Structure formats: structure tokens, C-alpha cells
């Protein structure tokens, strides 16, 4: 299925739940830690035992404020409410959440491509436990019974509700990636989609281009990676377009993404709206962060990815879209420091973009990095040699000149290269004839021959240029 994007517009709004990186749970002193022996991170509140009471974890509020400020939200006076529903992994059979008055409201997030997405709200709530379905292949509907582990119950969650401002699967992926970078940058989350510490629900609708009103949306759950997010949105949008084009209508539903068959499936139709009977949680008091607290948090916020991208682009002259990956890898500080040491900005960013995917790259010494770039731009190392040396620098922390010497990388006299090329042409007249007739495939024959003759020291680009020059 694919959609005629000239006729149809995809509209996506994402709700992202992120577990907050606290030591303990949102309302009790049981530890907040992934995994563990079942039912060992428990206390009376975690199990919803009679008589237990919640007391709010200050650090969770601090992290929520950080995220709110990072998303340009209004951080406001807020209250908790009870959301009532029965489910075995919900220990009190109500979830303490925020309803009318969330801690963060009305913010925005800028994607690496410059688009700005609205943030409706971000609110604190507690996570649920986990059920394992036993028998029937682990599927919920065929299980013989289920086992409930409450280790995760009560873990602090921040639900970040984005506005339906996204217009493609690609933007949706970029949004989640950007949000993840922000959450990690401010220390609020470890950002692990696959482990479920970040969970994405997406609301997808379609409309004919030019329509002012939004179409009926479906909510898609169980999206566990950026890849499946893109696939799920594309599948769901196509499904909706098909429905409409065949004269049917889209019904508001919650749908489940199945990674195996690449489809979304009906979970339940929202015909009988859930009645959660929200009311103010009487066991907790209001949170009023106040200007002092907010300013204290703002003062210690790290520079955020969008600002870092703008800085790196401005200071290097490299376009915004090219610096995004460098910032995502956290290499922008390294690049700026290397440039300050005299390295060429363009070459520096190019290395960070293509040759520094290793996690250890961030530990590179900027001065040594700068020295490497200078060896390359000074013509003492070819681009290929520089890449090899850089890889070893990341591994060992050694100085570029030493590594190059140990590998026997020396700058070749240009006369030496010319001699080798001319010798090769003379020795292989037939191949040269073909090259001159424009057989591109034969180029590799000559470049390979030069490399062999020089022990890999030659610069491939220089060889190609020389061949072109000889051809005339």
C-alpha cells in the first residue's frame, strides 16, 4: 500500500511516555530499576495495600521541570488526579495521574530539519506493573493464566503529548529521535525505546489536501522502535486512505501494531467511551514549583540539541542537516574544540559525520584530532590514511603522527605517483585504450594497480585525477 501524497495528507500526533531516571518510585521509596527478581521492588504503596499513602518524589518533579523547560513549556501549578479503572497490573485499581492541571503546558520542539512541533502538555503519572501470560504461546487472549509482577508499578512516568503537527512518518521519527535526545540531554530518561523506558502511542489520521478539518484518528500502540514507528504510520495512513477511497469511514479506534505482519490490528473500538471518573487525588497536595525553583532548574539546564546544531552549523558553515548526526553523537563539543586548535571546520565535521560512529569517539583529545585534520589538509596524509589513523586514535588514544609513522604512512612525492601511473599505462595498453574510450569499470584496475604498487599509500582521488589528466 502506498498513498498518493499529492492527494492526501497524513496527520500525526504523538504521545510519548518516558520513565524518569529517579532512584525511587514516584510516590514511594521502592527502587526504580529495570528488571530485577519479580516483586522485589515493592512496598505497601507499590502493591496498593490498604492503608498505604503516596508521598511525591521531589526528584521526579525536578526532572519534569527540566523536560518542561527544555520543551519551552509553561511550568505551572499542578494537581494529581485519580484515573479509575480495573486492571490486574494496576495495584490500586486507579492510576495517580494529572488531568486538568498538568505540570507542563504549551511548549514546542524543533526538528533537525527546522520544523517546529507543538507540545500540548507533559504530565506526571505512575507506571503499571507487568503481566506475563502463561500458556497459549504467551498471547493474552489464549493464556491459561497470567502472573503479575509489580516491580515497575509506581515508576515515575512523564507523558508528553504532542500536537497533531506532524505530516509524515519521517517527521514522526525525527520527532521521537529529537525528543529522546532532549530527554537524555537533561538527564530525565535513558531513552531506551526497545526496553520500554520510552513508549510511543501515535494518533494517525488522513485528510484530502486542502481540507481544513482533521480526519477521524486511530491511536496505535505497541510501537517499540523508530523503524516500526515509521512503518506503522505508513501502514495505518494507507489503510485509512483505502477505507475512505472505497467509500467507508474511519472509525475511532485503538489499534495494535504487529511488527511481524507489519499491520495494525483493532484493539477495541471506542464506541462506549471509557469512564475513568477522574477526581482530584485527596492523598496528595498541589505542586507549585514557583519562579525560584523554575529559574534554578533553568540555570543548570545543559545546551539542548537544537541550540547545539545551530551553534555548530553557524561556527563551521556546514549546513544544519549535516550537523544533526554529529550533535546526536555528542561530538559537537569535540569538533568545536578541534577547530579552536586550528583544524579545518569542514574536514573536522566531515570526520565526525562519517568516521566517528564509535561511542569512544567522544573521548578523543581535541588537540590530537586537530593535529590529524591538519596532517590531512597539509597533504601529509591522504583521506583514506587519515580515516585509518583516526580509527586507531579512537582505539588507543595515540598521537596521529606516531600512528601514521608506525603504519608507514608518508606523503608521496607527486612525481613518484606520476611515475607509477605512467608505468602502469605503458604496461597495459589494451586496458588504457578501454579507459580512454570511456569504460568506467576499468578505472578500478588502474587505481588498484597503483595501490598495490604503493602499499596503499596513494590517495585514490589523486590517482583518478591523474588518469583523467593523462587521458587529456
Amino acid at each position: 500500500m502506498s498513498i498518493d501524497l499529492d492527494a492526501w495528507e497524513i496527520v500525526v500526533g504523538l504521545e510519548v511516555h518516558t520513565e524518569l531516571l529517579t532512584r525511587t518510585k514516584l510516590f514511594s521509596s521502592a527502587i526504580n530499576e529495570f528488571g530485577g527478581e519479580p516483586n522485589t521492588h515493592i512496598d505497601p504503596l507499590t502493591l496498593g495495600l490498604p492503608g498505604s499513602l503516596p508521598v511525591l518524589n521531589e526528584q521526579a518533579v525536578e526532572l519534569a521541570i527540566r523536560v518542561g523547560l527544555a520543551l519551552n513549556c509553561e511550568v505551572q501549578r499542578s494537581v494529581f488526579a485519580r484515573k479509575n479503572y480495573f486492571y490486574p497490573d494496576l495495584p490500586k485499581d486507579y492510576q495517580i495521574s494529572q488531568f486538568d492541571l498538568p505540570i507542563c503546558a504549551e511548549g514546542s520542539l524543533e526538528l533537525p530539519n527546522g520544523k517546529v512541533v507543538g507540545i500540548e502538555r507533559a504530565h506526571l503519572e505512575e507506571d503499571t506493573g507487568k503481566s506475563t501470560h502463561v500458556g497459549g504461546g504467551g498471547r493474552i487472549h489464549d493464556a491459561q493464566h497470567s502472573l503479575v509482577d509489580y516491580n515497575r508499578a509506581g515508576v515515575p512516568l512523564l507523558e508528553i503529548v504532542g500536537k497533531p503537527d506532524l505530516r509524515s512518518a519521517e517527521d514522526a521519527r525525527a520527532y521521537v529521535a529529537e525528543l529522546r535526545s532532549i530527554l537524555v540531554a537533561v538527564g530525565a530518561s535513558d531513552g531506551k525505546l526497545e526496553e520500554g523506558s520510552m513508549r510511543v502511542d501515535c494518533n494517525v489520521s488522513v485528510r484530502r489536501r486542502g481540507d481544513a478539518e482533521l480526519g477521524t484518528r486511530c491511536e496505535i500502540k505497541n510501537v517499540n522502535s523508530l523503524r516500526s514507528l515509521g512503518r506503522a504510520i505508513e501502514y495505518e495512513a494507507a489503510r485509512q486512505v483505502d477505507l475512505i477511497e472505497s467509500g467507508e469511514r474511519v472509525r475511532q479506534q485503538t489499534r495494535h501494531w504487529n511488527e511481524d505482519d507489519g499491520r495494525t490490528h483493532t484493539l477495541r473500538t471506542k464506541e462506549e467511551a471509557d469512564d475513568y471518573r477522574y477526581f482530584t487525588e485527596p492523598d496528595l497536595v498541589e505542586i507549585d514549583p514557583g519562579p525560584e525553583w523554575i529559574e534554578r532548574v533553568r540555570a543548570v539546564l545543559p545546551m539542548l540539541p537544537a541550540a547545539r546544531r545551530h551553534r555548530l552549523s553557524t561556527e563551521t558553515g556546514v549546513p544544519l542537516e549535516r550537523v544533526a548526526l554529529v550533535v546526536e553523537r555528542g561530538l559537537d563539543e569535540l569538533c568545536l574544540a578541534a577547530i579552536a586548535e586550528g583544524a579545518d571546520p569542514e574536514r573536522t565535521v566531515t570526520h565526525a559525520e562519517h568516521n566517528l560512529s564509535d561511542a569512544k569517539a567522544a573521548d578523543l583529545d581535541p588537540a590530537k584530532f586537530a593535529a590529524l585534520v591538519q596532517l590531512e589538509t597539509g597533504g601529509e596524509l591522504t583521506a583514506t590514511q587519515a580515516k585509518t589513523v583516526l580509527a586507531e586514535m579512537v582505539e588507543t588514544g595515540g598521537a596521529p603522527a606516531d600512528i601514521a609513522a608506525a603504519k608507514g604512512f608518508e606523503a608521496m612525492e607527486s612525481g613518484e605517483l606520476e611515475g607509477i601511473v605512467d608505468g602502469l599505462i605503458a604496461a597495459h595498453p589494451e586496458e588504457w585504450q578501454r579507459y580512454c574510450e570511456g569504460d568506467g569499470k576499468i578505472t578500478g584496475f588502474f587505481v588498484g594497480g597503483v595501490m598495490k604498487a604503493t602499499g596503499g599509500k596513494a590517495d585514490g582521488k589523486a590517482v583518478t585525477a591523474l588518469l583523467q589528466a593523462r587521458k587529456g
Partner: protein
Amino acid sequence: MAERITTEDVTKVANLARLALTPDELETFTGQLAEILEHADDIAALDLAGVEPMARPLPLVNVFRADEPGTPLDRDEVLACAPVSEDGQFRVPPVLGEAP
């Protein structure tokens, strides 16, 4: 004045509250709930424009605990009071339907 609560309302509410009622109970409870709700007509008739709702008696704000781990409960002690447990977990019959 609100409309009188019906047996349909009570059936819906009993479902929401996970309670099953016999037909006799449904009749009795509907009548009793109606009487209690009718008593509340006195406050429904009040002019409460501009009166703020009071959700809790105290004007406390910002009551927090430090993010420090406490002593966890002993799992065996807790599971000893569970209706059914298995492998350190709480065992329940099959669950139909996903959580909201």
C-alpha cells in the same frame, strides 16, 4: 434538579464498580440510591456561582520526599497473604482485553 436515577444507570454503575446485582438487588439499590440523591436536591438548588470547589481541607503545597530508597517489603510475607501466587508473582485467571 437531576433526573431520577434508573435501573439502567445502576446497572452501568455496578459494571463500572465490578459488582454483580440480582434483579431484586437492582430494584432495591436503585430505590435507595434515588432517595439519597433526591436528598441532595437541596444543594443542587443552591446558587454556587463563584464558589470554589474544595477538594481537600488543607492548603498545603509542595509536600515531597527525598529520592532515597527505603526498605522493601519481604516478598514472601506479602505473597503469603496473596490469594494465589506462583514463582514469586501474583497469579490471576486469564486477562481479557488490554489495559486502556
